[in-house]
């Protein structure tokens, strides 16, 4: 019997921006601190790593919302990660079969199969994947596949001191998320919303979020889509172009022959 789909529910309202998740992820997955020898510290707010990539599989985003005179405002913090989409764009396009869906319904890149074409980087609706300079292959969060197989929870979820990152069966996480949303709404936080918790977004995100502002504020797409949405129309237009150019060549060559026979 295969196990239940497993995932993350990240409740951004209790994130304190400590980055314990980033550190735990790096330690467990042996991810380098520098990118091919280059140390990249952004100096952007508290955000030193700027994005998810091949060596940063957890990324804490810091959003400063303050009025001009700083008399009112708030900090938003969000630990971002691969969404482990039920309909995953990276898995859809991967031409080597390196990207697989595991028995935990998570999405994993097999580093020994990937040849670094980087199509998944462009296909991911969230910009999660990049090349890891240690392996020279595309890498991202595996939802700690090795730990899951051993019955452990992912390193980031275990390290999170406020339980902003919760790990478990997706069905249970969804109930917890709904309860938390109801609680926040009852307390008057009308901006609270779930992101990716239902099937309308890419069949559901197995790593989903509770946000307190528009998705764009967190650098997230409002309506992420699968790469294949353009496959049919793009192919049909190209095919039509081929037919038209072929016909033009055929007709003009035929006419040329007829004209010559007359002359």
């Amino acid at each position, binding site marked *: 019997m295969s196990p239940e789909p497993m995932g993350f529910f990240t409740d951004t309202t209790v994130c304190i921006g400590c980055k314990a998740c980033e550190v735990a992820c790096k330690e467990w997955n042996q991810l380098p601190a520098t990118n091919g020898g280059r140390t990249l510290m952004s100096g952007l707010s508290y955000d030193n790593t700027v994005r998810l990539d091949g060596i940063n599989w957890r990324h804490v985003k810091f959003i400063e919302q303050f009025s001009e005179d700083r008399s009112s405002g708030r900090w938003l913090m969000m630990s971002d990660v691969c969404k482990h989409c039920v309909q995953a764009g990276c898995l859809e396009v991967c031409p080597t079969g390196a990207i697989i869906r595991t028995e935990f319904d998570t999405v994993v890149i097999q580093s020994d199969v990937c040849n670094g074409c980087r199509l998944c980087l462009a296909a991911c609706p969230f910009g999660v994947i990049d090349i890891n300079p240690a392996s020279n292959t595309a890498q991202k969060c595996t939802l700690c596949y090795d730990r899951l197989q051993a019955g452990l929870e992912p390193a980031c979820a275990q390290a999170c001191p406020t339980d902003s990152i919760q790990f478990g069966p997706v069905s249970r996480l969804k109930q917890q998320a709904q309860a938390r949303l109801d609680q926040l709404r009852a307390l008057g936080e009308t901006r609270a919303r779930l992101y990716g918790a239902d099937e309308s977004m890419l069949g559901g995100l197995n790593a989903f979020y509770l946000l307190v502002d528009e998705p764009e504020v967190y650098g997230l797409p409002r309506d992420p889509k699968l790469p294949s949405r353009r496959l049919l*129309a793009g192919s049909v237009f190209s095919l039509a172009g081929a037919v038209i150019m072929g016909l033009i060549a055929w007709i003009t060559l035929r006419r040329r022959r007829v004209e010559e026979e007359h002359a």
Partner: protein
Amino acid sequence: MPETFFTAPPHWGWYIATYFFVGGIAGGAFVISSLLALFGRAEDRPVVRLGHYVALAGALLSGALLTADLTRPERFWHMLVQSKTGLPMLKPWSPMSVGAWGVLGFGVVAALAAAGSIAESRPGLWQRLARLNRGPMQAATALAGSLLGFFLAGYTGVLLSVTNRPLWADSDLVGLVFLLSAASSGAAALLLLGDWSGGVSELTRHWLARFDRTALMLELAVLVIFLATLGPALAILRGAWGAVLLGGVIGAGIVAPLVLERRTPALLASVSPAALVLAGSFLLRVVIVFAAQQVHVAGTEVVLP
């Protein structure tokens, strides 16, 4: 803001832009060569053979560029054979997966056609190979060559659209634009190389130039529709990349050759319209590949070029 702005670039650079250009020329030239072989006359044979050579050279260069671009080039064969099972690797819904087989098939057919052409042009040498360029064998390679040539010309644009990147995935027309550009640049390459190598009849030259003009006019029309229907993603082209597209691709690469073909001012007599077409076709790939990749998210902010 379009959802494509929240994604990350794949770091495709000069190798890929050059491959799109070279693959387009090779595909376009093989299509033209095949159609001339099927429906042309004896006077067209030099260009038929030239098209075979361009197709083969382009296929070899394409394979080299694509392999060199991988971050693990020694695993290039993982696109064709599943590395863990040894079974064939093919995802019909992934343009890159189909494309890997397309490039391979194109290369094989182009090699057969080129071998036939060498034998055809050097009487006495390997006369059995010349049969590749005659009768049913020629019909088969020409049919396969035109299908694979059109595929190579267009799938690269469809591949870009089947991602989530700005510009690429914001339109269904990238494949068509690339296909038409490949048709015009394939014809232009045959015109230039034909002039250089000599032996091309005025009859063929005239037809090639006319085919090229038709492709350019269609390309211009589709490019305008592409830009007009981009919506908010057009913001990417507001700066320098838009200037390159308007001045370099459309101005110098499409409009100028169309005008020069009709009436060449004495001052510009040395400028070859075919060379302009090739330059414009290369710049088109450069703009599409590079402009889209300069969009990225830093922290939570979308950064545009």
